[in-house]
């Protein structure tokens, strides 16, 4: 864990890949990881960097000079809440207000599409449909901010459960298209299961999804997918015994070095107490 933080701290704020542009998501995750590790100065600086990106409407765009799209707003909320909810109370309040007002575009039910298109979550970009990852992040941010019982939060949970595949796991957010069931992938499955941990959701696909995550960890995969899967299993108190070994291998890959995004997620996955 310490070695990950030693690499992460100097490249925060940072981006998705070494030398790549600084971006909101990697910096938000990094802020959370650094804060949890007690590195409050660097976490605070990351929090201020995020605050400087906040628009008048309360949203936070994908990066500097990129106010659109605004899906990372919820990640900024999570980061500020973690760093110091008092110091960033004004930013959190405005971001929460924007999040509650922002909606994915619903559509009438369509027999060619398997999921319930009328459920409203959050979208990647304005005026587009609701998808799993932005909805998961928004649900987690509202829960962290004390809005777990808000109708938007409860509908988000219904939406996430609706999009689980019959045999477990999630695709990017479709379930069935023209009668064919899509295949699951580790990253969206991990993110959705992480969001559902601690929610009052009762569906047998959740158990199948957790088994899916456990089964996939034996196969080579990307750092982000690995991290999200371990975070989710930890949140459900099913942390794999070999989690730290898998994380260490991922940290050692050449492309992980200087990637704020990958290092931050792996740092959070390495934190055995992390499940917020």
């Amino acid at each position, binding site marked *: 864990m310490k070695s990950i933080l030693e690499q992460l701290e100097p490249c925060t704020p940072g981006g998705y890949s070494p030398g790549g*542009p600084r971006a909101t998501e990697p910096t938000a995750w990094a802020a959370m990881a650094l804060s949890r590790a007690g590195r409050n100065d660097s976490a605070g600086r990351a929090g201020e960097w995020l605050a400087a990106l906040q628009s008048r409407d309360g949203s936070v765009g994908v990066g500097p000079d990129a106010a659109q799209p605004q899906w990372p707003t919820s990640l900024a909320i999570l980061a500020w809440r973690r760093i110091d909810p008092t110091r960033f109370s004004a930013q959190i309040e405005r971001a929460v207000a924007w999040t509650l007002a922002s909606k994915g575009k619903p559509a009438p039910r369509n027999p060619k599409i398997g999921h319930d298109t009328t459920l409203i979550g959050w979208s990647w970009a304005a005026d587009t449909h609701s998808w799993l990852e932005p909805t998961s992040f928004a649900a987690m941010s509202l829960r962290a901010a004390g809005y777990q019982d808000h109708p938007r939060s409860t509908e988000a949970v219904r939406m996430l459960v609706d999009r689980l595949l019959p045999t477990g796991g999630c695709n990017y957010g479709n379930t069935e298209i023209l009668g064919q069931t899509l295949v699951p992938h580790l990253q969206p499955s991990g993110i959705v299961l992480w969001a559902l941990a601690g929610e009052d959701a009762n569906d047998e696909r959740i158990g199948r999804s957790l088994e899916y995550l456990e089964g996939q960890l034996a196969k080579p995969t990307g750092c982000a*997918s690995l991290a999200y899967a371990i975070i989710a299993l930890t949140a459900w108190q099913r942390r794999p015994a070999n989690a730290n070994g898998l994380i260490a291998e991922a940290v050692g890959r050449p492309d992980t070095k200087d990637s704020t995004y990958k290092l931050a997620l792996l740092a959070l996955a390495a934190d055995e107490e992390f499940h917020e």
Partner: protein
Amino acid sequence: MSNQHSKTQIDKIDRRTLLKVGGAGAILCATPFAYRWGRPRAKVFVSRGQHYDGPLAQTIRDGLLAGGAEPAWYRGKRVLLKPNLVEPTKAIPHMTTNPAMIVAAAEVFRGWGASVKVGEAPGHVRDTEMALIESGVSEALADSGIGFADLNYEEVVWRRNRGKRSKLRGFWLPQSVAEADVVVSMPKMKTHHWVGITCSMKNFYGVLPGIKYGWPKNVLHHNGIPQTVADVNATLPRTLAIVDGITCMEGDGPILGTAKQMGLVLVGASLASVDATAARIMGLDPMQVEYLRLAVRRMGPLDDSLIEQRGEVWQELATPFEILDQPHLQKLRLEKVGPQVT
């Protein structure tokens, strides 16, 4: 190797007729000639009997040269190869461009003095590292020393929409795309359950960054898939197509269809013409594929009489691909497929 199509002789007869016959007769005879003279032509190279462990670099080189490529032009140029890695999984290898095709193409362009990079913005998976591992591309690039650009997360530049088929005013292009001298579409030849076929033009959805357009790229879907396919292609810098038609996908493409062995490689600089040829080989009418009809003029003609076939002729290769029993797809069927079609 070059196989002159009989249509070339028809053109010569028309010109001779025009010179000999005057007056109204000349006007009547000139009409088909004038039609073809005034409209752009394109060359599409098709090679059969190809294998992933075969001499693909030679095939691709032959195809590019047959299309008029000048190797000296590529010296010092930046070439970006764009394969299809939309949603890779080891369980469905026929969904994505085979790594052997990518390595072979890189070999050709590097041999001509170009600097080559591979770039992709997978549309259905955010973890590009995972996509590279599942598709086998990661290992292939590492073995060949070819660099990779994750187009989902680069610095972006704004480019005005040069197609104007949709309402989008412009597109955010990743730096690697905007700076490339040539962007090479390297699709897998597949059916598509919404638009009928996905080939070189539809593959260019994957140059647009998910960080701006989402996963999937819903901004494009909400503005019309055929319209935005046409617009993205019109907005890109110079493009080429090298199509992986060796193991294709039929049925419920572009993700869950079944493998279909064809052994083909298609190459061309006019992507609409390449896709039109691919469609005909698949037993589909390109004139019924909306994104092809919307393609701007410089993407090449769809009319078979304006496409000069190099290598094989499509009629001898055509075999109906299975498509879903949906009305919007069944209407794409060509009535006749096979060597008897002229």
